[in-house]
Each structure stands twice: as structure tokens, then as C-alpha cells.
């Protein structure tokens, strides 16, 4: 992926650029609003990572708004130290596609970037999702692994659907909380892990090749690859 990082903190920039490059992405970066605006408007990117508070008269939200007004639909992840729910809503309303609060874990950022780039490719219209021999039908709400039908409760189905839509990508606990349960808070205990292990029981327990993997320090990934 080709990414643009607009961020004025040198340390954060170095850390994020290095990490993203190691993950196989190309990263441009700008350390002020003007340059960020210029790059975002002139170069094609897969995802833009935008800090909110920037030097140079233009702040992150203004850049996002301007880009959206000029018809630029590149997915934008807003990065900010402002964590209030109101601020988050403001960020998303200005045209951002996702909002990540500083400080963040790098795995969380990477997972969200992957999800954003996948979203922009537009795979939302499928009615059947398949990962390896696991298959779910979104219309009849049925799940099959090989020849065997798996019975899932509605929330489990939604969880599996989210994982399948992001197959091959790391999905963090926070992403699951936000997208499957629509909860924007920290539930204190590892409730998401418990839901995952329950789901794992149903889809992986009796099969030789597990599909649902735990990614250390990051989250989970559903994949058929070895």
C-alpha cells in the first residue's frame, strides 16, 4: 500500500514510518498541515493517516474537510490525542473514516489501516463469504465448515462475518468491540477474548486446520493460509 502520514511529532513519525515500511508499505510523510494538504491533494494514496493538531495554520480536520469537498475519497484515519466521544464524532463527521486515539499500539494502527484499505476496495456486496472450507451465507444467516453446518447465535454470526470480511488481516479487540457490538468503551476484562474462544470452539475445535488465530500483542486473524 502507498500511505501518507501527516504528523508533526518526529518520534511518532519515525516509529510509524519504520513499522509501516517493515510491514511492506510505502510511506510518504509531511510534518505540517500545508505540506500534508499538498501531498494529499496531488498524490494518489491508499490510505492517509492524519494527525489532528498540526503546525502551519491548517489543522488535520480542515485538511480532511477540504479533501472531501474537492471529491477526494481516499480513506483517512484520524490520529488524535483528543479522546472525547464528541471529538471522535467531530473527526468522523469532517470526513474521516476511522479515529484512533493517541497513544496507540502499532498493531492497532496497522490493523485499522488494513481494514480501511479493504473497505475502499468495496467487497460489501457479496452475499456469501468463504475462508478456506468455512463458508457463511449472509442472506440465510447459515454457516458451514466443509460439509458440516455450524449453529451460531446472532452475535456470533456477526462476529464471524466481521472476521471473514477482514480475512487475512489482523483484527484488534477494540475493532471487534466497535464494529460487532458498537461499544466505544473499555470493558475492563477480556470479554472479547472469551467470545472469540467460544467462536473458536464452534468453528475450529473438530477440525485439523484452525482458521481463527491469535496474533500476539495485536488481536486475531481469520485465515486459511498456513
Amino acid at each position, binding site marked *: 500500500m502507498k500511505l501518507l502520514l501527516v504528523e508533526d511529532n518526529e518520534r511518532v513519525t519515525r516509529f510509524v514510518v519504520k513499522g509501516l515500511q517493515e510491514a511492506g508499505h510505502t510511506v510518504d510523510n509531511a510534518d505540517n498541515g500545508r505540506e500534508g494538504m499538498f501531498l494529499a491533494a496531488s498524490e494518489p494514496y491508499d490510505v492517509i493517516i492524519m494527525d489532528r493538531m498540526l503546525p502551519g495554520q491548517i489543522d488535520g480536520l480542515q485538511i480532511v474537510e477540504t479533501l472531501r469537498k474537492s471529491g477526494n475519497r481516499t480513506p483517512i484515519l484520524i490520529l488524535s490525542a483528543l*479522546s*472525547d*466521544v*464528541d471529538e471522535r464524532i467531530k473527526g468522523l463527521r469532517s470526513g474521516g473514516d476511522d479515529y484512533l486515539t493517541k497513544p496507540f499500539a502499532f498493531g492497532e494502527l496497522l490493523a485499522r489501516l488494513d481494514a480501511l484499505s479493504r473497505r475502499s476496495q468495496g467487497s460489501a456486496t457479496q452475499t456469501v463469504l468463504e475462508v478456506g472450507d468455512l463458508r457463511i451465507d449472509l442472506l440465510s444467516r447459515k454457516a458451514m465448515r466443509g460439509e458440516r453446518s455450524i449453529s451460531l447465535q446472532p*452475535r456470533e454470526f456477526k462476529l464471524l462475518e466481521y472476521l471473514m470480511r477482514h480475512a487475512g488481516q489482523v483484527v484488534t479487540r477494540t475493532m471487534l468491540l466497535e464494529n460487532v457490538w458498537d*461499544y466505544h*468503551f473499555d470493558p475492563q*476484562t477480556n470479554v472479547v477474548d*472469551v467470545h472469540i474462544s467460544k467462536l473458536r470452539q464452534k468453528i475450529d475445535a473438530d477440525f485439523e486446520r484452525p482458521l481463527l488465530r491469535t496474533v500476539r500483542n495485536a488481536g486475531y486473524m481469520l485465515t486459511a493460509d498456513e
Partner: protein
Amino acid sequence: MSKVIRSATFALSFGYIAFGVVALVLFAAPLWYAWQVTVEDGRAEILHADALRLTEVFRHEGAPGLKAFIDARVGMQLPGERILLLTDSSLQRLAGNLPQWPKTVPAQPGTYTVSLDLSGKPTESVVVRTALPGGYNLLVGRDVARFAPLTRHFWTGLGGAVAVLSIVGVLGGVLIRQAILARINSIRQTVLAIVQGDLSHRLPTRRSGDELDTLSRTINGMLDQIEQLVHGIRDVSNSIAHDLRTPLAELRSRLEELSLTRPTTEETFAEIDAAVADVDRVIRIFNALLRLAEIDTGMRRSGFVQVNANELAAEVVEFYVPAAEIKDVTLSFASSGPVSVSGDPTLLAQAVGNLIDNALKYAGERGSVRVEVQTRADGAVVITVADDGPGIPDSEKPKVAQRFYRGDISRGTPGVGLGLSLVQAVAKLHGGTLELADNHPGLRARMIIEPGALLAGRPRSMVMAEPQAVVPGAEKSPAEPMVL
């Protein structure tokens, strides 16, 4: 009394005086105008009628007849009653009480107000000039100066009224000012004491309930809130100092040890992972504090929507069911049907989640946690989370919702000690309370949201329920437990 109080300052009383004067003038002006118009019109009319009569005399009896008539009248009338003058075509006097034709009267027939020389001094007069056949000129007039004293009386009266009004106004203003200044001064003294750091002072209030009193009461309410916030901040800073220092100290010693001992690569990585976990713990505490601060400001109220409390609680319960199963705890949900409250769904879900999380933490092995949503008879929505764990001793109940408070029983369990504080803050934000009662055994935590409380603008603080206290309405609507 309250009307007087309302004119709170001197400036205001002056305003009233000005207003009174304007009103007086507005009242006098039409009177003056009516007086002028009516009297003057009447006067001119009489003069016209007089001139007409004299013209008739002239028509019937000719110039000599009129001359004789005028002479007779001048001889009979009181001095100054009527000005009469008959002249020939060359304005030579034939009869009347003016020595000669006055030059100030214009040449055309008509009604004029002119200055006439009457017995040696110029006098303001109204005259009617009539042209008679044969070039004769007739002047009939009236000396207006006779009315001057009346006009003068009018103005003197008006001026007197203004003067009295001003004096009374100024006197009243001074008295009111003194009365109000005395009260304002007492308020000022109190406020000064508060500014100097003693937040326990309150403004004096009376029973009268007038405007100043209402203001004092409102300010006292504000002071209560400020005092509470200041104490809250003090408590929180103490707690933050304690609870953030612990993980930070751990982190510091971990890193320092790493820097000093330079262990093997593998060991180093393990230590770094542990350090990241330490930092995450600090971030978690910070996030929880920020969330609490955000709730305390009350700003979230702007985003309130109608929430089905029943559905919301059911979903949170469903969310925690797998976690309960792992602990072999029965998590059940009961409700008396859909319940609508105005609130913030995220916060309400988090609050219910925290209560369930707590309950699951302390529920015994193979224990049970029961969540209920009910509408009380008075319309309040009650969300109850009851467990059968060790409960909280009565002595600790008032403290558990304090920030960072962790009871003896909770030592060694995960959590940052902000769970119940958040529940309480959320309840307060929604105009409600958090009640902690005994469940015999265990804890029965009740979040009570009163729909009217927010409108009344009096969020209540935490109330400790007696163990015997029974929620009215809860008994009347026995809900069937639904095991999930």
C-alpha cells in the same frame, strides 16, 4: 417591597425619575395642546361672530349707524374687553377704542395675532380684519395678554410636579441604594471570604424569597457544586498520585534494571513486553479518568437520545454471558418490558457493563448474577445488578464509589478502582443515583434514573440504601427471570 428592591441601584432610580418626568410631559402636552386649540379657536370664533354682527349693523344702518353703535359699545364695555376700530378707506379712524389703525395688521382681511399698542405698551392681541362695502375697514380684537397668568400657572404647576417627583425620586433612590448596598455588601463579604479560600462560607438568605434572595440561593447552589468539585479534584489528585505512581514505579525499575544488567536478548524482549503492559495499564487508568472527567462536566447531555434501557441492558448481559460461563456463574436477566430513558447509550452500556463486570468478579463459584430492569411506580427506571458474592460491609459502602477506592476484598483482583465511580458519574449525569444494598448474601447495586430529575436540575449524590429498603414498584411487578 419587592418592587422597591428591584430598583437595585442609584442609576436605576434616576432612570425612574427621568421616566416619570417624561410621563408627566407626555400627559401635560395634550392638555396644553387642547387648551391652546380650544381656547384660541373659541376666541377667534367669538371675534368672528362679533365682526359679523357689526357688519350686519353696517349693512342696515350704514357707516354712521355703525359708528354710533361702536361708540355706544366702547362706552359701555369694561376696559380691555374688546378692541374695536372702524376706519374709512384711507384707514382714518371713525370710531372705536384704538387711537389709530395699527401698522402691524396686514392689508388683507383675516384673523391675525399681532402686537398692538394698547395704552402705551405693546400687547399681544388677536384681531379680525373685515373689509366693509365702500372701503370701510373694521377691526375687532381681543387682548390675549389677559390669559398669560393662566399659562404661567400651568407651567408653574408642571414644573412643581417635576420638582416634587425628582426630590421624591432622589430620596427614594438614596434609601433604596442604602438598603440594597447593605445586602450587596454582606454578599460581597461572603464572596471575599470564599475567594480567600474558605469554600465553606455561604451567602446569607432570608425567608422573603425576593430576587436577591433567589440569587443568593442560586449562588449557594453553585458554591455547593464547586466545593464538591474541588474536593473531588483533591481526592482524585491524591488517588492519581498513588495509583499511577505504582505502575510507573514498576515500569521505571523494570527499565532501569534492564539498562543496568543488560540481560540476554530474549530476556530483554520479555522485559520490554512487560514494560509495554505496564504502560498500557497507565494509559487505561488515564482513559478511565478522562472519561470520568468528560462525564463530570455534563457536556455529554447534549448528545442524549431516547434509549430502550431494557434492550440496552439485555445486550450488555448477552455480551458478558460467555465470560460468566467460563466462571461457571449463572448470569440471568429479567425485565418488566421496554423502558425508555433519555440518555447516552454508550455511557449507560458502559455503566451496566461495569456493574456486571464487578458482580462477575465477586460472585462465588457456581454463583449467580441477576440483572433486572424495572420501572418504578413514580416513573424512575431501576437497573439492578445483584450478585451472591461476599458483598460490601456497610462501613465501606459510602467509599466504594470514590475514585480509586479499592476495598480490602478487591485487593489482588484486576481493575483500576474506577468502575463504580464511573457508574455513579453516569447515574448522576442522567439525573439519577447509585444505591448499594445487601443482597443477603452479596451486593445489590441499583442504578436509579429518574426521568424528571434532570429537568429539575438537581442531580443527587449517592444514597446509601438500608438493607431493608425495598424499591416501591419492584414488588408490584414481579418479573419472570429469563436465564440466558
